[in-house]
């Protein structure tokens, strides 16, 4: 069936992205460094990220503490390494949830069509009219600061974009012969949507996911900065920057290093997302 004829062409997209866009290697390398830091945090971190050495509080970077220490005398480098876990996990899980729920809504809406589709689309338009940060902030504030609530808040802000991305190809695909054939063979609607429509758009959805994970990580950092993130003492980049901001006049290292870590992560994901999108987009591919 047409499913098998379509997927191999798309899988080449990954190769194409790396062959055509040399910058994407830089993105991949940066991302690998961050993922490794998160995975091997206990091995890499020179100190316990929660251990307080009050004698060594607010030390500038030195041979003992490469990136300095914070107001409780905790090692900034160790906290930075552990902080990668929070950013990556929150970003990844939130995007995964948004991707599953959003794609399901988009496919359902596009497949059923008619008034149902119109109602769903106008709801999505309304969701898109809330500024992402404020929507996340509002939900996180009402739910209370915790890891799960943060993930939920960020996931909700990203559902509507995924639904939009999934809906457009559904409308094109449902008119194709292989769907008609499936219907004639008596396949159920959920089966058609899940096994025959979804696999044909999985690459688009995943590429958008890698781009929006950057925005999810940015939202997580912003919410942590405001004080709505994973509660202390868990090290998160956003809350580290918040602490650095409070000591901005005398302890520059507190804010600078977590800032660079967030920048590096978001940049890596943006570079990769860009390259992948160019590779699957027929408009730019033809050029």
């Amino acid at each position, binding site marked *: 069936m047409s499913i098998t004829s379509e997927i191999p062409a798309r899988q080449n997209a990954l190769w194409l992205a790396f062959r055509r866009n040399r910058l994407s290697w830089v993105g991949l390398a940066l991302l690998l460094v961050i993922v490794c830091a998160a995975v091997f945090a206990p091995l890499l971190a020179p100190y316990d990220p929660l251990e307080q050495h009050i004698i060594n509080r607010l030390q500038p970077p030195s041979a003992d503490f490469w990136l300095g220490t914070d107001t409780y005398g905790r090692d900034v480098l160790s906290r930075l390494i552990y902080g990668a876990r929070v950013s990556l996990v929150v970003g990844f899980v939130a995007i995964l949830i948004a991707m599953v729920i959003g794609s399901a809504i988009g496919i359902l809406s596009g497949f059923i069509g008619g008034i149902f589709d119109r109602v769903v689309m106008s709801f999505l338009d309304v969701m898109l*009219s*809330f500024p992402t940060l404020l929507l996340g902030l509002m939900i996180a504030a*009402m739910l209370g600061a915790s890891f799960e609530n943060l993930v939920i808040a960020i996931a909700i802000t990203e559902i509507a974009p995924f639904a939009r991305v999934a809906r457009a190809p559904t409308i094109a695909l449902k008119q194709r012969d292989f769907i008609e054939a499936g219907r004639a063979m008596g396949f159920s609607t959920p089966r058609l949507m899940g096994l025959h429509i979804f696999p044909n758009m999985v690459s688009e959805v995943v590429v958008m996911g890698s781009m929006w994970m950057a925005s999810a990580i940015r939202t997580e950092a*912003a919410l942590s900065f405001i*004080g709505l993130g994973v509660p202390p003492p868990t090290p998160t980049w956003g809350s580290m920057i918040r602490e650095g901001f409070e000591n901005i*006049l005398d302890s*520059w290292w507190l804010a600078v290093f977590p*800032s660079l870590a967030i920048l590096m992560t*978001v940049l890596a994901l943006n570079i990769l997302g*860009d390259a992948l999108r160019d590779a699957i987009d027929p408009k730019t591919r033809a050029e």
Partner: protein
Amino acid sequence: MTQYMIRRVLLAIPTLLLMLTVVFVLVRLVPGDAAIAILGDQASAESLAAMRSQLGLDQPIHVQYIDFLAKAATGDFGRSLATGRSVLQEVAVVLPYTLELTAAALVIGAIFGIPLGTYAALHRNLWPDYFSRVLSLIGLSFPAFVSGILMLLAFAVHLRWFPVIGSSGSGVGDHLRSLALPALNLGLIMTAYITRVTRSSMLGVLNEDYIRTARAKGVRPGALIRRHALRNALIPVVTIVGLYFGTLIGNSVLTEIVFSRPGLGRLILGALNARDYTLLQGLMVVFATFVIFVNMLTDIAYGLVDPRVKYN
């Protein structure tokens, strides 16, 4: 054209209604008791009951909903629990500061972004193009508060060119000096965005037949770019920047917090710290209304600048 405008304005009404419904549902979907969230779990039963009746939570849900819509229709989005002033009053006090900041950022973004994007498109796949692409990717990767703090560290704390704390004096010079860094922070992110959008839009236009025709009939390169290419390329730029408005609001909120500028950012932060949920709910409605309004204006502007848009 007038008909198109009227239709577009009317189309915003169901969207606004739906938006109010979403806010209403969202606020009530949250588990837990709003009164406890506001007063804390130590509050007495009487004060909780009083708070519930003040919020109208003791009414049946459909009564609450109709009441909420009816009040919103008259511009009443609730009162701040902390100050007792209406949401619109609270917003009106700080809005000029935020508008000043976002307007300055848009101007900076247009001044730098449009030429940079055009230049990059004209030198496609040459080093100016790579340079501007990498720069705009970096610019777009900065969360607004991160770039703000780095700028604050570099220009205010280290170089001491600007005040660390927002408005200090009352003169025009002081005012501009306190606006400069926040505007530059937001403006650079805007520049990155506009550069990117202009570049891709320009690339699309440069492939059009009418550009080839103009070139063939001997239009000078400068005039070709300005009068034929750029004018057409800027149309989608207007739309896309309009769609970016929601993100711009989020970024300006963060920028205001970092630079301790008065504005919507501080209002939100204050509402969060005071557990002022009615103010937060009202602010959501106000912001979403803004975005819907800007989208509507963008659509109308699109119709005005591009005569090819069909008004049906």
